[in-house]
């Protein structure tokens, strides 16, 4: 078995709304995979199909070689799922939450003791363990949810927007812990997010999803490279001559030079390597440089190119989703 997840032509309809449109995807074992897309893109729907919560309208999906529809029972023993919304009981303590979950999953008394202790430690919750969850901050609640999920040592961890509404520092700690877990135990992490930076920093592979369609799957580097080359912008005190621009075009690695009045936009394979040559050429043409800036393509650019829309600008999220995010932010 080579793939942790393989999805073939999966579609999901809610009434007339097509939430997923013939999605095809393969994720290798041991990978951190990010499903990147705006609210309402179909991320949650795909996650919930993969975690056997409901069946696709058409198509087939396999997780760890098991069919999510016909072998759901077997599969549920091997995976963990953390929904986007809060998913712990708030009127009991953090420790009690882990205890009840471990009992539901059927861990033996001895396994239970170790598993609870280890997962509390991993998520830095040992000290707060006996406090009521209603006194926890948003970040602590998220860590407790992750502790519940890792406690049962799943082969794949499905996380729906794991850091939504959390402050940057907490986001960073949570990701470092998930990265470490992935590195040490080889646990697959399959997560959805609409934070570009998170996908770029922490995922081995990114799947861009928009309006139910999975548009592109690639590593963060590949994605960035595939969209455009680096851009060097030069501002001069006066209009740049045509000959200066044509000299630049002859430089190695420079693919395109656009001149707009006092500004030049130079596309190059690598801005670090070409910058010296560009400046030298401009100086020899007596161009007075007022300002020079370089821009590397980001995942935002890739997203814009493939999804045809800004990641955050298009917000078709439902009211309930908005309420949940607000709730998280309030808690955090």
């Amino acid at each position, binding site marked *: 078995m080579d793939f942790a997840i393989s999805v073939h032509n999966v579609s999901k309809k809610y009434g007339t709304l097509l939430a997923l449109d013939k999605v095809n995807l393969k994720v290798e074992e041991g990978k951190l995979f990010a499903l990147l897309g705006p609210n309402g893109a179909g991320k949650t729907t795909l996650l919930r199909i993969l975690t056997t*919560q409901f069946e696709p309208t058409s198509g087939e999906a396999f997780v760890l070689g098991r069919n999510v529809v016909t072998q759901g029972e077997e599969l549920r023993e091997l995976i963990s799922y953390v929904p986007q919304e809060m998913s712990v009981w708030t009127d009991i303590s953090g420790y009690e939450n882990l205890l009840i979950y471990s009992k*539901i999953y059927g861990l033996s008394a001895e396994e239970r003791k170790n598993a609870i202790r280890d997962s509390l430690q991993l998520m830095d919750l040992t000290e707060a363990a006996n406090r009521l969850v209603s006194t926890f901050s948003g970040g602590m609640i998220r860590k407790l949810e992750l502790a519940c999920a890792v406690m049962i040592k799943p082969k794949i961890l499905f996380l729906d927007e794991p850091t939504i509404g959390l402050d940057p520092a907490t986001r960073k700690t949570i990701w470092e812990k998930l990265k470490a877990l992935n590195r040490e135990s080889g646990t697959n992490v399959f997560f959805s997010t609409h934070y570009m930076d998170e996908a770029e920093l922490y995922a081995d592979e990114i799947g861009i999803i928009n309006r139910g369609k999975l548009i592109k799957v690639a590593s963060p580097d590949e994605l960035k490279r595939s969209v455009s080359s680096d851009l060097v912008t030069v501002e001069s005190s006066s209009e740049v001559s045509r000959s200066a621009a044509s000299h630049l075009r002859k430089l190695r690695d420079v693919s395109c030079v656009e001149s707009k009045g006092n500004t030049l936009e130079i596309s190059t394979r690598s801005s670090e390597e070409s910058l010296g040559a560009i400046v030298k050429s401009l100086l020899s043409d007596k161009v007075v440089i007022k300002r020079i800036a370089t821009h590397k393509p980001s995942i935002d650019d890739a997203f814009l190119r493939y999804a045809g829309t800004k990641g955050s600008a298009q917000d078709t999220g439902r009211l309930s989703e908005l309420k949940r995010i607000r709730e998280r932010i309030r808690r955090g």
Partner: protein
Amino acid sequence: MKLNEYLRVILSMIELEIRRIMHDRTELYLRAVQPLLWLLVFGPIVGSFHSIPTGNIPYTDYIMPGVLAQSTTTVAIFFGLVIIWERESGILKKLVASPSPDFAIVAGRSMAAGTRALFQAVFIIPFAVLMGVKIFPNPLYLISALILVFFASSGFASLSILIASILKTRERFMGLGQVIILPMFFGSNALYPVNSMPPLLQLFASVNPMTYIVDALRGLLITGNISQLPLDIVIILIFDAVLISIASLNFKRIIE
């Protein structure tokens, strides 16, 4: 899935409920107010008219099992609110993605409600005794009555989970909860004998599970006459089995 795995999930859910009750008992105290008013105010006043044929039993004693049944099933009927809260948070999604079968989740949550109802009964019975209600002096009968309260409330909790999975929102649920509880209470033998009702209401009472619960509790707690008990138990167990099954078949609908 083997039987012991079902049992394991059910016991975990009951343990969860006991832990919640240990952390916060406010709901139990507040819910105890209403049954106490029935026993403290309604019972003695209506009893003083001697207008309801209760045999040789004082009226407050007569309604005590009914009040007990009503207040414990109320706890169960409103348990659906917990399920709706768990739907709005992500808990139900997580449970559905866990290895526990839907049937065990529904049965477990229902019996958790049964456990909560049992705590309620443990409040009401001693209070009734303090008020002078004569409980039938047989500890075995008392224990049987508590077991009966547990299973009856679990059945009503399944009904509540079923309703929650259809209605899905708190507001609708609150409305329907009231619509169910009062007719069931008044359309039973809780406050007056069934044969004193108009024929149409008698017919309703004969299909109303509350009638059988009250009858069994009255036999066990007050009169000591348990000739009807086997029938009552069969009806209550059928009620439980049917509702837990329907509610678990419907359960996935709640998270869609």
